[in-house]
C-alpha cells in the first residue's frame, strides 16, 4: 500500500498507447480479435495492430456509424471486434448503433474511445469528449472502464477481450502518470484503495487519480487523512467500497475529467443516496473548454490536486 506522501508523479505511456500495444498482444493470442477504425489508426494506436494483422484491421474511413454496425456484424458471426476512434466521435456518431446493434442484443463488441477529456489539448472542444461516461453508462449491458495508467489499461483491454458482452474503455491522449506497478492486479467492479484514510475519501478516475494522490499527500502534511479510491470500473460501480468510505470517513470528493452533471460523480451520489448518504463535493467540468496545452487546460479548468484539496476542505466543513 502506498502512503500518500510517497507518491511522485512520473509519466508513463499514454493510455491509448497501452491500448494499442495490448491489442497486438491479444491479436497474437487469438485470431478472432479484429479491429475497426475510422481513419484514426495513427492516433488511436490501432496502427500497431494494423501493421501486424492487416487483414484483421478494417479501415472504415470517417464513418463511425458504419464502423459500429460492422463491429456488431463481426461479433454476431463469432469475432471479437474492437472498434476505436476518438471518444468524441465513436460515442456520439455511433451512439444509435451502439444502442440498437450492440447494447440491446448484447453483442460482443468492445469500444475503445481515445482522446477523452480536455487533456487532448490544442484541438479544442469539438474533439474533446466530456460527455461519454454518461453516454456509455446509459447503455444497458455495457461495462464501462476508465483506467488511470498504462498498467490499468493493459488489464482493462485484456479483461474486455476475455469478457463476453459490450465494453467501453475510456483512454486519453497525453502520457499518463504511473500509478501501478507492472504486477498490479485488478478486479472488475472493484475499486482500488490506493491510500488508506479516515477523515475523507477522494474518489477519482482516469487522469484525476494521480491528482487525487498528490492531493492526499498535501492533505497528509496538513494532518488530514484522505483515503484515495481509483474507480477503474465506472459501471458496475463498486457500491460496497463507496459505502465503506462513507461510513468510515464520512465525506467524499469525486474527481473526474468529465462533465460534473453526468459523470462518475452523479453515479457515486446515486449509490450513496441508496446506501449511506454523506456530504460529497464534485471536481469536474462545468462546460466546454478551449484550445491550450493539456497542462494549461487542467490548471485553468480546475482539475488539479490543489482544486481537490480545496474541495476536501469544503466537504470537511459540511461533515
Amino acid at each position, binding site marked *: 500500500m502506498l502512503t500518500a506522501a510517497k507518491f511522485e508523479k512520473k509519466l508513463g505511456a499514454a493510455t491509448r498507447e497501452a491500448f494499442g500495444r495490448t491489442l497486438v498482444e491479444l491479436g497474437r493470442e487469438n485470431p478472432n480479435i479484429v479491429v475497426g477504425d475510422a481513419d484514426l489508426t495513427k492516433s488511436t494506436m490501432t496502427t500497431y495492430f494494423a501493421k501486424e494483422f492487416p487483414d484483421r484491421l478494417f479501415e472504415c*474511413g470517417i464513418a463511425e456509424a458504419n464502423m459500429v454496425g*460492422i*463491429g*456488431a456484424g463481426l461479433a454476431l*458471426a463469432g469475432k471479437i471486434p474492437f472498434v476505436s476512434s476518438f471518444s468524441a466521435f465513436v460515442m456520439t456518431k455511433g451512439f444509435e448503433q451502439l444502442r440498437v446493434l450492440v447494447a440491446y442484443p448484447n453483442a460482443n463488441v468492445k469500444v475503445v474511445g481515445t482522446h477523452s477529456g480536455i487533456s487532448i489539448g490544442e484541438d479544442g472542444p469539438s474533439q474533446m469528449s466530456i460527455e461519454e461516461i454518461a453516454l456509455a453508462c446509459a447503455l444497458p449491458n455495457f461495462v464501462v472502464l476508465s483506467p488511470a495508467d498504462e498498467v490499468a489499461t493493459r488489464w482493462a483491454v485484456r479483461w474486455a477481450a476475455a469478457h463476453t458482452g459490450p465494453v467501453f474503455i475510456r483512454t486519453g491522449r497525453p502520457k499518463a502518470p504511473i500509478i501501478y506497478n507492472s504486477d498490479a492486479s485488478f478486479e472488475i467492479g472493484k475499486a482500488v484503495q490506493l491510500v488508506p484514510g479516515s477523515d475523507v475519501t477522494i474518489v477519482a478516475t482516469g487522469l484525476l487519480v494521480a491528482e487525487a494522490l498528490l492531493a492526499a499527500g498535501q492533505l497528509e502534511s496538513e494532518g488530514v487523512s484522505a483515503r484515495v479510491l481509483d474507480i477503474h470500473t465506472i459501471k458496475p460501480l463498486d457500491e460496497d467500497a463507496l459505502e465503506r468510505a462513507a461510513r468510515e470517513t464520512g465525506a467524499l470528493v469525486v474527481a473526474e475529467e468529465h462533465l460534473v452533471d453526468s459523470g462518475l460523480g452523479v453515479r457515486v451520489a446515486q449509490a450513496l443516496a441508496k446506501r449511506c448518504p454523506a456530504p460529497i463535493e464534485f471536481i469536474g467540468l462545468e462546460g466546454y473548454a478551449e484550445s491550450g496545452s493539456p497542462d494549461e487546460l487542467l490548471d485553468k479548468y480546475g482539475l488539479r490536486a490543489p482544486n481537490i484539496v480545496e474541495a476536501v476542505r469544503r466537504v470537511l466543513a459540511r461533515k
Partner: protein
Amino acid sequence: MLVASMERIHDPAALASICKQIRRHIITMTGAARSGHPGGSLSAVEIVVTLYWDVMRHDPARPDWPERDRFILSKGHAAPVLYAALAECGYTPKDALNTLRKLGSIYQGHPDKRFIPALEASTGSLGEGLSVGLGMALAARLDKRDFRTYVLLGDGEIQEGQIWEAAMFASYHKVDNICAIVDYNKIQLDGFVADIMDLEPLAPKWESFGWHVIDLDGHDIPALQKAFAEAAATKGKPTVIIAHTVKGKGVSFMENNPKYHGVAPTAEEVELALKELA
C-alpha cells in the same frame, strides 16, 4: 407446404403458392395485433420466399449452423413477413403467429434476437442492417467460409446516411459475398417516396458507389431466382437488387395505398383480404 429442412424448391409455381400462404399469415397476424406494418410486409413476400425456400443455404433444425447463409431484415418493421417465413420453415411456432406484438410474444413488434435466436440481428432502427451484414460478410471472408449474407432494405430506409457509408465501404473492400435488396415499393410512412425525399436516379446512385446493380420486378419469382444467381456469380464487387414492388401487394384495397404502411387491417378487411388470397 411445410418445409422443415433445407431442401430447395425451384418451381416458381410452388414458390408462388408459398407466397400466398405467407400473405395470409401477414394479414391474420397484423389483423390480430390491430397494429403493425402490413404494406411493406406484403411487398417483400416474393423476395423473402425466394430466399428462404430456394436461394439460401439454411437448416431450421440448426439455426446456429456456422455455414448458413445470413438474412437481415434491415427494414425491421416488415417483421410479419419474416416471422411468417421463419414459422413456415419450422424455426418458430406457426400457432403463435397471432400473438404478434402482444406482451410476452416471441413475435415482437420489430425483430428481436433475444426472443428468436434464429434471427440474425435485432433491427428496427432504419439504416443499420447493411453495416451489420458487412460485418458478417467480412467474418466469412476471414474464416474462409462461403456463406452469403442477404440484407433487405426499405426504399425510405436508404434515405439514412449510414446506408451510403456502408455502400462505400462494401465496394471499396470488394465485399462480394453480400447482396442487398431494395424493396422499392415507392411508399413510406408520410406518403409516396418521390414526394418525401426522392431516391431517383436510384440505380446510377448504387452504380456510382461501385455496386453491381440488378433492376427487376420484385414480384417476379423467376427474375428473382436469376438475379440471386447473378449476384452470387458476380465477383469483386457487391450486388444490389433494386426490386420494384407494390406496397400491399396481393390485397386489392391495400395495394399502392400509403395508409397501409403502418395501419393494420380491421376484422372486416381481414375477411375481405383472405377471400382475395384464398
